[in-house]
């Protein structure tokens, strides 16, 4: 496999040389965070460029109240909880789904919403609750499944809606203004769905460049070069270096599905609080598939671990090594915060791939 990485790295170094203060770019998506570590790119970046990991790991941004609700539902008699695998180990107030499963609750790991619906078909005497987590990548599949359940009159299927939207979170970060960000590396797969044009508010309201890139090292580096070039030229535009798969308008079928089945709603993010219109809930005609409504469960308050600084990590305010628990009380084997649980979490990626962090157990 040929790579243009060395040339792209040189180009990046030339562009960044002497920049003061250093350029800060946010890679929004957890898949980018992991790819940047896994491919060793992080160590190749010029010192004048800092990459900040963003709130783009679905596990990491799911509020504790949603985990608690999932645990409460899974503990009810007759319920089968269906979830994506990486949600299993996220700690709620009273343990994790993994622990609940060991205690006898019926919790299935599924790879798609469709599989959860199949479970409902197979187990007509049980209620199947699907934990609907993820951004615009997984939300259309949840919507399609709800539509299918509605069409077939399946009554023992419902969804705990935790789906989130990427662009409102980016805007919230910029509005909060806690971390100076010069631009965003936008995630390839979310952009396939929402389209490049969806980032227009970031450019129009906040004058920050947005570059959409794929996940191969060369694609990431091309994205970073494009971003840094815009920053150097004081430009702010949407650039798409992943145009083979990402279009301007996005995936119309998926977007239509979302528009039909879901409505945007204020939702709570882990540590970030409630962000206006940043989540999805089921539209009134499909409300009866909402797990909270069906079981009369209320979302509680979040009581995050006092040591955990995941909230600051996913907003770029802190790096994992700044957290007193990192690699000490909080490790992948006994995670305190979600960023250490998910394979795409920033803390897990640091712990796993960063030589300095591994070596000293602490510092990045």
């Amino acid at each position, binding site marked *: *496999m040929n*790579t243009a*990485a*060395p040339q792209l*790295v040189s180009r990046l170094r030339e562009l960044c040389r002497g920049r003061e203060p250093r350029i800060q770019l946010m890679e929004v998506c*957890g*898949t980018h965070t*992991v790819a940047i*570590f*896994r*491919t*060793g*790119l*992080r*160590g*190749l970046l010029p010192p004048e460029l800092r990459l900040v990991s963003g709130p783009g790991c*679905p*596990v990491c941004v799911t509020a504790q109240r949603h985990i608690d609700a999932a645990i409460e539902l899974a503990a009810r008699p007759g319920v*089968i909880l269906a979830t*994506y*695998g*990486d*949600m*299993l180990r996220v700690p709620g107030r009273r343990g994790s789904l993994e622990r609940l499963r060991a205690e006898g609750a*019926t919790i*299935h*790991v599924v*790879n*798609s919403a469709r*599989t959860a619906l199949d*479970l409902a078909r*197979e*187990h007509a*005497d*049980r209620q199947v609750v699907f934990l609907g*987590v*993820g*951004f615009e*990548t*997984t939300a259309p599949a949840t919507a399609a499944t709800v539509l299918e359940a509605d069409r077939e009159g399946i009554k023992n299927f419902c969804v705990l809606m935790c789906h989130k939207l990427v662009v409102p979170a980016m805007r919230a970060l910029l509005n909060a203004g806690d971390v100076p960000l010069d631009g965003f590396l936008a995630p390839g*797969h*979310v952009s396939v769905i929402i389209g490049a044009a969806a980032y227009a508010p970031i450019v129009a309201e906040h004058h920050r460049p947005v570059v959409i890139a794929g*996940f191969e*090292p*060369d694609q990431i*580096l091309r994205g970073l070069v494009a971003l840094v070039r815009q920053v150097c030229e004081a430009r702010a535009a949407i650039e798409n270096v992943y145009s083979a798969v990402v279009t301007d308008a996005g995936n119309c079928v998926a977007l239509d599905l979302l528009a039909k089945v879901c409505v945007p709603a204020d939702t709570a993010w882990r540590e970030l609080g409630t962000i206006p219109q940043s989540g999805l809930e089921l539209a009134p005609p499909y409300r009866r598939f909402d797990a909270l409504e069906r079981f009369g469960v209320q979302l509680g308050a979040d009581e995050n671990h006092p040591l955990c600084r995941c909230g600051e990590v996913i907003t770029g305010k802190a790096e994992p090594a700044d957290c007193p628990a990192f690699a000490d009380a909080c490790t*992948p*084997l006994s995670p305190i915060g979600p960023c250490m649980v*998910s*394979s*795409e979490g920033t803390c897990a990626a640091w712990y*796993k*791939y*960063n*030589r300095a962090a*591994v*070596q000293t157990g602490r510092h990045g």
Partner: protein
Amino acid sequence: MSMQTAGTGTQNRVVIAHGGGGELMGRLIRDHLLPPLRNERLAALTDSAVLPWSAGEVVFTTDSYVVTPLEFPGGNIGRLAVAGTVNDLAVMGATPLALSLGLILEEGLPLEVLDRVIATLAATAREAGVEIVTGDTKVIERRASAAPGGTPTEGLFINTAGVGRLRPGVRLGLERIEPGDAILVNGPIAEHGLAVMSVRNGIEFESSLRSDVAPLNGLVAALLDAGGDIKFLRDATRGGVAGVLADICDGRNLSLEIDEARVPLSATARHAAEMLGLDPLTVANEGKCVVVVAEQDAERTLRACRAHPLGRDAALIGRVVDTTPALVELMTRAGGRRVVQRPYGEELPRIC
């Protein structure tokens, strides 16, 4: 359970009485197990097998197999049960001689599935040149698989123990590894784990992934016969190649440098791992071993490996170095470096 029950509608499935030590069990053994496994020692149906022995050291191992699904592209639990135990013997420098076969069948298991598994198991034993010399069969009640929402089980578990004779003059062990030694792997990695995971998750990849499950005793013998100073061998099963590299690093307190571009990996496996969010280095193999060989014998050992059908795509992927602290580092294709660690537990495919 009476014979009558077994004869009405459940004829083609395992029933509790199959494990009862009576006529039905005798039939199961006579009709479904002995013919494919055909060998004299087993056919004698004695309580234990009596094996001839000469001087030398015995190598003895055991392993249990609980894979879901029972059948996957490239193999099934039967092939796994022979190859896994044979490989555990082979990488110790032993010539595998005989295996035991403990079967735990779940009530309701289709006999045709059992037949397929045993046929493959027998064929794999022939391929490896080992005999199944003793065995045991138990039937357990149908468990959670039948209960609504229970964890699906497939109703067949296998334990195989194996004995082998240590090859004279072979000295293998972590303690022999030194800086400068070369690290070799005998072919494309991650294929077993990805094949099983793709079936489990209902994902199909453009060209289908197949498990690499294979007995490696022939390959290991060829490597040892080539005469190079081989210091350590381990099959890279659960935990993948990363797990073995971490064992070496921890066990010897030495660093390893791995060159990503040299690690054999098919394009399909690379895409599948990417899609599932997994690092191919941490994904299970069932027909791959990591070989540590003295630097001056690396090329010779590589040639011997490539001359064997199970080592055609072998590669020297890195070396042992004397840097502190002891870490496994991957020199990436992009020109960077990063740490390789053993996976923490079950590798979970990511959400999106």
